[in-house]
């Protein structure tokens, strides 16, 4: 018993756990308080901002790639509710969002991409564009269904977070964990109340932008293997697993969480298999 208590205390003392816990509570609070205004999707950015406040800062004097990711996440959170207000879930809006995400990826990574030779520029550039465009379309398809969107957030955040951590960047890893915490907070509220929370593009646009930029940043700036990017795309696909409409919200939450977590583990297992060891952090 004492041993278990010591392990628990060690976990509580770990700064990574503390930051993740703060992100979780920030997301929980925002999702609950803003649900009546149909803005509970802002839980994503609340969790992310809590993490940025704890481990980085909001100083944008030197606009590095990491800072650009923060800016892009904030802008996406401001723009996303407008999409929910002004447009129904039509295809035109979906393509507009995908194009905007592609613009974001080019803006964020161009300073590094432009230094590469033409072949590498084409390879990396097209890879990043395809990744974020696919992620955008896949997440937009599940935007109206809050259980699916939040399980995708949990899975993507956890998978990108652990993968980035294993790829030698704790900063990007913790950004990923913040998204996972928002997804878990969202799922928890739905599980407890057995009711769906309002979600929409207010939730999925910041989710797309943040995951679509953090994962490539871990690849370009740290040591994330390129083949993890297509594996990340399986997570929102897993969140679309067909389920019977007769199942309760609680049961749907459980089933989708398990399926998504299984797919989230794939990139992590591949990295562990490749490196054969844990990183130094």
């Amino acid at each position, binding site marked *: 018993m004492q041993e278990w208590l010591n392990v628990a205390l060690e976990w509580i003392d770990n*700064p990574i756990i503390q930051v993740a816990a703060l992100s979780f509570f920030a997301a929980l609070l925002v999702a609950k308080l803003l649900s009546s205004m149909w803005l509970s999707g802002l839980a994503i950015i609340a969790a992310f901002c809590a993490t940025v406040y704890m*481990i*980085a*800062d909001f*100083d944008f*004097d*030197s606009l*590095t*790639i*990491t800072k650009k990711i923060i800016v892009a996440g904030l802008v996406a959170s401001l723009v996303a509710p407008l999409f929910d207000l002004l447009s129904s879930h039509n295809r035109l809006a979906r393509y507009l969002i995908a194009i905007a995400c592609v613009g974001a990826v080019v803006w964020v990574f161009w*300073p*590094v991409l432009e230094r590469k030779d033409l072949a590498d520029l084409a390879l990396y550039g097209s890879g990043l564009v395809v990744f974020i465009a696919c992620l955008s379309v896949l997440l937009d398809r599940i935007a109206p269904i809050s259980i699916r969107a939040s399980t995708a957030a949990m899975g993507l955040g956890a998978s990108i977070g652990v993968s980035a951590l294993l790829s*030698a*960047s*704790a*900063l*990007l890893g913790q950004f990923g964990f913040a998204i996972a915490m928002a997804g878990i907070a969202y799922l928890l509220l739905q599980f407890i109340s057995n009711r769906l929370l309002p979600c929409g593009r207010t939730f999925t646009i910041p989710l797309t932008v943040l995951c679509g930029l953090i994962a490539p*940043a871990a690849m*370009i*700036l*740290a*040591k994330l293997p390129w083949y993890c990017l297509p594996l990340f795309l399986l997570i929102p696909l897993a969140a679309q697993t067909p389920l019977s409409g007769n199942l309760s919200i609680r049961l749907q939450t459980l089933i989708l969480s398990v399926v998504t977590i299984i797919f989230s583990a794939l990139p992590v297992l591949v990295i562990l298999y490749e490196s054969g*060891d844990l*990183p*130094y*952090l």
Partner: protein
Amino acid sequence: MSRLITLTLAAFLLVSSHQLLAAPERYTLDPTHTYLHFGISHLGFSTMHGRFDQSSGHFMIDNAAKTASVKVNIESASINTGLEKRDDHLRSPDFMNSVEFPVVTYQSTTVRFDGDKPYVIEGNLTLLGVTKPVTLTITGFKCGTNPMNNRAMCGMDAVGSMKRSDFGMTYALPGVGDELKLIIEAEGYKD
């Protein structure tokens, strides 16, 4: 008349040779004997040391005018603490962000002399896209001929310090210390 011409010529040669000797001399840094070492507190328990393995640059020195200048480029990805996994983490965006900022530069603004030797270098360090002043104190300076290859060279040791947070490197503060102790060994061959 011929005596006057000879004297004038001799005087001209004397002045010319003095000017030649007093001209600023340019030295190119020898990368195999030029390293920036650093020390940083690890959780307050001990000071971890490392160095950057690759650098390039040059310095100019004018002993007569007592002026000098230095410019050094350091490859940020060449950070070496003796443990590859830790070095990978130090190269990541958490610390050096080596892919985005592959080079750290130091450019002197003023070099102060004590007698005929430089003893303080004031300059600007550019790290992570941020430029801040950093002052180095020269603890040893010598010019002469390298007995191994008979080439003219100068060498120096210098120390300094800087705060990484001044350059936006804030990850893991305050556990991993803010202040870095800098220890520099540099040698350069005359061009």
